[in-house]
């Protein structure tokens, strides 16, 4: 006997701004499709939830991205995001339709909205997850228990979280961790318009002004992947930038390279620059002077490429490669592109 016979399907909140759905919603719908395909006997559907003003015409798009069903609330109160009205509408949808799980993008909006809704219905909510599975051991009991994995301690530790006793199982998921499946215009699905009953239509928070953020330079201390340029790589800076871009990372440099005028001071790593600890640091043509190493040795994984087999950098690198950066880097960019296309 299933523990929660009334609760079914995986729901995805499709965040939109000015009527344009954010990609993260479609990434989550694509992942939800994969999840339901692992439990074919349970006949779970993927349901998109779209809140906004004049967003009805987007329902077909949500279906084309993989939803079986779309629940829409179209109301002028939902034109701009408001914690109050979005939480009110979403809570009523959850109470009415009883989703088994409910996924939201871990965006500024999602991380404002999901906790509020979860608290109102006393549901478990896992924050900022990077992986979701269904516990196949529980499927025989009629249960689609989500195993939600997230990094903690600044990415040093991972935890897999479950919500065994409450429904829906809620999670916010980081954007860009899941692929968006190709659009299928031929898909058909059900569109349901839902009319919430507003407890109050007086806003508690008023938007006085919205301003575009001034563009700032890159903050290398926040980058998850860094490709470092040393003096031995000064002729390959363009290739290194391409490599970093392909990996979704940033480029940084040693003091020598900055002093030579090839890179800006704000990307300098080391004792007189910044301290970084990305998941991956690729040191290109960096000898490994202690002043530089002090700023990057805590990186989770260090790969070094240097033509001098005696270079100090090889002592701290997890993997060292003796070679000429000018030869290796263009080939590496090609290999990364191949791996991404595979």
């Amino acid at each position, binding site marked *: 006997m299933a523990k929660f016979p009334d609760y079914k399907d995986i729901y995805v909140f499709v965040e939109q701004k000015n009527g344009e759905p954010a990609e993260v919603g479609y990434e989550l719908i694509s992942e939800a499709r994969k999840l339901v395909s692992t439990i074919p006997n349970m006949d779970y559907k993927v349901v998109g939830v779209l809140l906004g003003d004049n967003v009805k015409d987007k329902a077909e798009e949500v279906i084309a991205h993989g939803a079986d069903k779309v629940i829409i609330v179209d109301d002028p109160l939902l034109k701009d995001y408001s914690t109050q009205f979005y939480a009110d509408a979403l809570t009523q949808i959850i109470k009415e339709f009883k989703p088994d799980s409910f996924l939201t993008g871990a965006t500024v909006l999602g991380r404002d909205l999901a906790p509020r809704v979860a608290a109102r219905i006393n549901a478990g909510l896992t924050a900022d997850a990077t992986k979701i599975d269904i516990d196949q051991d529980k499927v025989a009991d009629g249960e689609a228990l989500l195993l939600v994995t997230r990094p903690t301690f600044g990415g040093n530790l991972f935890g897999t*979280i479950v919500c065994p006793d409450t429904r829906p199982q809620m999670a916010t998921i980081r954007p860009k961790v899941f692929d968006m499946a190709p659009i299928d215009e031929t898909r058909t699905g059900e569109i349901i318009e839902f009319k919430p009953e507003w407890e109050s239509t007086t806003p508690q928070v008023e*938007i006085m002004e919205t301003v575009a953020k001034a563009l700032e330079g890159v903050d290398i201390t926040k980058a998850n992947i860094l490709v470092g340029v040393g003096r031995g790589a000064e002729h390959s800076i363009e290739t290194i930038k391409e490599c970093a871009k392909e990996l979704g990372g940033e480029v940084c440099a040693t003091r020598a390279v900055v002093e030579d005028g090839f890179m800006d001071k704000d990307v300098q790593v080391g004792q007189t620059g910044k301290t970084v600890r990305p998941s991956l640091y690729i040191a290109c043509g960096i000898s490994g002077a202690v002043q530089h190493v002090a700023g990057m040795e*805590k990186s989770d994984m260090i790969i070094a490429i240097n033509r001098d*087999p005696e270079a100090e950098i090889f002592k701290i690198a997890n993997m060292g490669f003796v070679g000429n950066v000018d030869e*290796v880097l263009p080939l590496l960019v090609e290999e990364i592109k191949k791996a991404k296309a595979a």
Partner: protein
Amino acid sequence: MKIAVLVKQVPDSTEITVDKNTGTLVRDGVPSIINPDDLAGLEAALALKDKDDSVEITVISMGPPQAKGMLQETIARGADHAVLLTDRRLGGADTCATSRTLAAALDKIGYDLIIAGRQAIDGDTAQVGPQTAERLNIPQVTYVDEIIELTPEYAVVRKALEDEEQILKVKLPAVLTTLSGMNKPRYMNCMDIVDSFNNPVQIMTYDDLVDILPQNEIGLAGSPTKVHRTFTKDVSAATETFDLPAQETAELIAKTLKDKQLITK
């Protein structure tokens, strides 16, 4: 104007390293600090107090007894009162149970404005602020990077979004969650630290909340999320150096990155 500031004591995660041989977290000797987003929240409250004498700041933390030292520090920095909510029965709480407990304590203590850090560097959930606001049935503004104006009826704040900023006017009482980059926390001088001991941290336990908070709603039992398992990232055990032709070097690096899921589409 009563401002309640919620803070958490956390291990300094920039000091935490993974033992590359065992793959476990090295926690020994890691200092405990006041969570950076919370410290910014305290500084924002102190800045409001600088401008308005009627502001009375109470700092509240839920945690083990050793968090008392951190709270004493908040008094040295200028808070009027500090309350430590500590009780074994509250242990093992997720954000759902934590927010219920904090909301109950806030009900007892009183508030016109609640300031909490956006998220803690150990859990990174960013959920306790909004969930506390929900329990108290008051509005929230998260990701605040400036408190522009405060009146008895409302606050005007700047909220940082991914690609834009909003100036929002929120009715009080409300919860604001603050970002660590919003200000530069003030220093304490020696005399402030000495003087702070005349104003001891108050201790609150579940007994103080039992009349408004059922026991099945707190601690581990009141937490809908459960930790299924924890693990650390794979780290290579040792240094390896390869001397290969350029093409093979490139292939091996790409393969390693792919195996470690560092190449994403």
